[in-house]
């Protein structure tokens, strides 16, 4: 552990740190542009120069490893002058267009120019300008503002693993870009906007909307996939202006997927803002009382077995709890949350969560991916796998579609045949798993939503047990979910015999008279037969089109709600804006309806609902903890079909009612998904 002196303060730091990191440890701020703690060191902006004793020249502190007996000065007049000089050079070709730049107010260059720069420029010549570039519908480029820190270049090749950005040309003609005109194809490309220290890369959908100081910031949790990334919701008035990532080392580090970041404009269109009742085949705007009366008329006196409920992929645990209790009070047991027909059951928590945890991936040394296109289903988990791969000594193989996961991952086969071979130890990947100290497997919904899903689950359990994935301090069995509500639903026991498929079948067979859809849009609504459909949700999607009564609910940014991510981590969203129009927080709607129906639910406040949740499953007592379960038996051994595993997500950008209503996501679909189909020729 080397000892060094920084500005007269003696400290001892870990070996291998840089001078900049050592300075940070004692709270000395070093200005920087190119250095970023999650990217490799580039050392090209020169803003972090410091003086080192016995060195003839100033050193770039971000690239200088600490050494025994170093004497560093960061506050001398010479250092001040160096910083001013570097700042002046950086500003030579930077346009002074802050008033029309979207980065204004949250710009590193602006802040550091004020903090460390001079008050004037001595440069009288013409500034250079750069021809602008297009990076697709998400990122707005203004490359004249670029200061060539190459953070975006390093992000795309290191973190995202889709090396499309680069520096072309040299000297004064150097430009950052893709060289060829194309939309960036990474699912994490939006993070370059956060990384860019200047206004060269800014958010395209958010262009010219607001200044950062006008925004109200609310810390929340994302529901666009089952990862539950930590987000910050920026609002102005009653409108969500943008969504940014928030640091959560255990889940998303500081990245979010493009869908998480950009689908928020879907919160402004296709919204259900008032109750509706279908009269003479047409949905008519009405009042809450009328809507409740219409429901009450149908439900009062109904035989419990002729009532069923389905909870959707974005439903919060509170509303699911209330609906479960309401369904039970009507006398029905038919309630299910598994819209996609996954064969998971809730007998054993270890059997349906991501036990290794997302940060735990970094401890693993081999990974078998079964029926999951992780890049599309959970880009953040994929980024973590890539991070693990980059540190070396990690072997991965996948069974399913041949896809590029951005890290070396051999395709072992397409379906259950390969799975059986691995279980029998005949496959060559079996040796890799056997050799590994901490092997893991990731089971995707593509393998579980099939008719033989339960048998695949049992097979995966057998593989986990056979190859030492389950030990006292390691659990390598992981289920990757695609729906934000799914683990919460399973934790609350929102399952019934036969699942959603049997509820839908009974509807079309006329065995169910009234069905309650809590944001359930992924089912085939044409098959609901003559059933009276109550739809509660926030978007006019598939479910609302078929509905007989619509109850407008709140989206995830509009309520204080609990979601459980794929790891089994209980997380809470916070109300950032109020629900639109007449819409209400979801659990309160069900609570109010229960009163009208004469089955008043025993909770009046959010705290009371949450204690009811804890009553059902003690796991809801935890907060932000990934709590797996005790290993046990799950899945049912059975015949396996030999068909290939297919990922449930075809188009990454449109998976739920919010992203389907989003204009930005529609543009991405056009630019990337449709384009991709044309390129590989599967579009006729």
């Amino acid at each position, binding site marked *: 552990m080397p000892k060094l002196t920084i500005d007269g303060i003696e400290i001892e730091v870990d070996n291998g740190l840089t001078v900049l990191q050592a300075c940070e440890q004692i709270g000395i701020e070093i200005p920087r542009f190119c250095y970023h703690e999650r990217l490799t060191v580039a050392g090209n902006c020169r803003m972090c120069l410091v003086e080192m004793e016995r060195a003839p020249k100033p050193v770039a502190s971000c690239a200088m490893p600490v050494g025994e007996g170093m004497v560093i000065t960061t506050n001398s007049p010479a250092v001040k002058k160096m910083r001013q000089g570097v700042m002046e050079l950086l500003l030579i070709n930077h346009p002074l267009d802050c008033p029309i730049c979207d980065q204004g107010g949250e710009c590193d260059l602006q802040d550091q120019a004020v903090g460390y720069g001079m008050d004037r420029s001595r440069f009288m010549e013409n500034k250079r300008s750069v021809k602008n570039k297009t990076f697709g519908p998400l990122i707005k480029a203004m490359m004249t503002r670029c200061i060539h820190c190459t953070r975006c270049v390093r992000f795309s090749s290191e973190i995202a693993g889709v*090396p499309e950005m*680069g*520096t072309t*040309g040299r000297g004064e003609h150097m430009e950052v870009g893709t*060289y*060829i005109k194309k939309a960036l194809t990474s699912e994490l490309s939006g993070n370059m906007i956060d990384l860019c220290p200047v206004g060269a890369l800014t958010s395209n959908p958010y262009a010219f909307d607001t200044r950062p100081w006008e925004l109200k910031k609310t810390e929340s949790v994302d529901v666009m996939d089952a990862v539950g990334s930590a987000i910050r919701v920026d609002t102005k008035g009653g409108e969500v202006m943008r969504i940014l990532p928030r640091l959560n080392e255990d889940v998303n580090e500081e990245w979010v997927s493009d869908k998480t970041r950009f689908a928020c404009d879907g919160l402004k269109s296709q919204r259900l803002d008032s109750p509706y009742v279908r009269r003479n085949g047409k949905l008519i705007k009405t009042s809450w009382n009328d809507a409740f009366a219409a429901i009450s008329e149908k439900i009062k006196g109904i035989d419990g077995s002729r009532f069923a409920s389905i909870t959707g992929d974005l439903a919060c645990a509170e509303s699911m709890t209330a609906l479960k209790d309401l369904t039970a009070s009507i006398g029905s047991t038919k309630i299910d949350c598994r819209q996609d027909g996954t064969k998971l059951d809730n007998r054993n928590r270890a059997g349906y969560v991501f036990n290794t945890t997302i940060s735990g991936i970094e401890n693993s040394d081999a990974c078998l991916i079964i029926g999951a296109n992780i890049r599309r289903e959970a880009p953040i988990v994929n980024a973590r796998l890539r991070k693990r791969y980059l540190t070396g000594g990690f072997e991965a193989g996948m069974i399913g579609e041949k896809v590029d996961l951005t890290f070396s991952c051999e395709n072992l086969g397409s379906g259950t045949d390969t799975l059986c071979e691995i279980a029998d130890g005949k496959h060559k990947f079996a040796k890799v798993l056997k050799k590994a100290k901490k092997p893991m497997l990731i089971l995707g919904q593509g393998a579980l939503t099939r008719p033989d899903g339960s048998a695949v689950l049992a097979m995966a359990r057998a593989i986990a047990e056979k190859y030492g994935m389950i030990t006292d301090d390691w659990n390598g069995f992981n289920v990757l979910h695609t729906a934000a509500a799914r683990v919460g639903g399973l934790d609350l026991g929102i399952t019934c015999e036969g699942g959603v498929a049997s509820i839908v079948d009974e509807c079309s067979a006329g065995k169910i008279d009234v069905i309650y859809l809590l944001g359930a849009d992924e089912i085939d609504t044409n098959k609901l037969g003559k059933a009276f459909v109550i739809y509660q949700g926030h978007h006019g999607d598939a479910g609302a089109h078929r509905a007989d009564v619509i109850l407008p609910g709140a989206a995830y940014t509009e309520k204080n709600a609990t979601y459980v991510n794929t790891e089994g981590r209980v997380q809470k969203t916070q109300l950032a804006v109020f629900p639109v129009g007449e819409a209400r927080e979801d659990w309160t709607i069900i609570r109010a309806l229960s009163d009208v129906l004469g089955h008043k639910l025993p909770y009046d406040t959010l705290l009371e609902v949450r204690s009811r949740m804890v009553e059902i499953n003690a796991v809801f007592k935890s907060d932000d903890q990934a709590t797996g379960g005790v290993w046990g038996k799950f899945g049912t051994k059975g015949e396996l079909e030999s068909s290939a595993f297919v990922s449930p997500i075809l188009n990454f950008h449109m998976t739920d009612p919010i992203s389907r209503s989003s204009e930005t996501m529609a543009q991405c679909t056009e630019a990337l998904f449709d384009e991709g189909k044309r390129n590989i020729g599967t579009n006729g």
Partner: protein
Amino acid sequence: MSSDSSKAMQPETFEFSAKNQKKFNTIFAKYPKGREASAMMPLLDLAQRQHDGWLPRAAMDHIADILNLAPIRVYEVATFYTMYNLAPVGKNHIQVCTNLPCWLRGSDKIMSVCKEKLGIELGDTTNDGKFTLSEVECLCACVNAPMMQINDDFYEDLDEDSTVAILESIKSGVKPTPGPQNSRKGGEPEGGAKTLRDSKEAN
């Protein structure tokens, strides 16, 4: 050199010719396993020589594919080095050095003679496709300044007359002798060696 290849007619595909495939194998074999990416620069040069002195995007993509690299990594290299031409050039690519030593020795005159003689501006190609005129940064022949490079050859110690003579000679289909265009031999002083002349005798 020009990083704006959008104007050029880009071919759809690129493959090494059978003859160059052999050269490719020789080049590729020079780099150890895991370091194949280092073959990128000689391969780009090979591709450029095959393709009339300029590198189409298809060739860069082809090389990226062979070396298992992202195409952008090849674009970065090809745009960095001025010796890779990303847009079509004439049969004779004239690069006049205009850096300080050459400039002090009269490179402005050389440049204006070239422009006048060829009837083109800097960066243009003559209508017959025979000549392209461009400016180049120091080519490390300052001792024989001013100089210019035509394709692979250096023509040094130029003045207006010798420049005209070189261009005339190329036009008539005769390749002028590379090297100093006055009486100098290599980097020796004009009129032969001035020092150590009797070193033989001294020994």
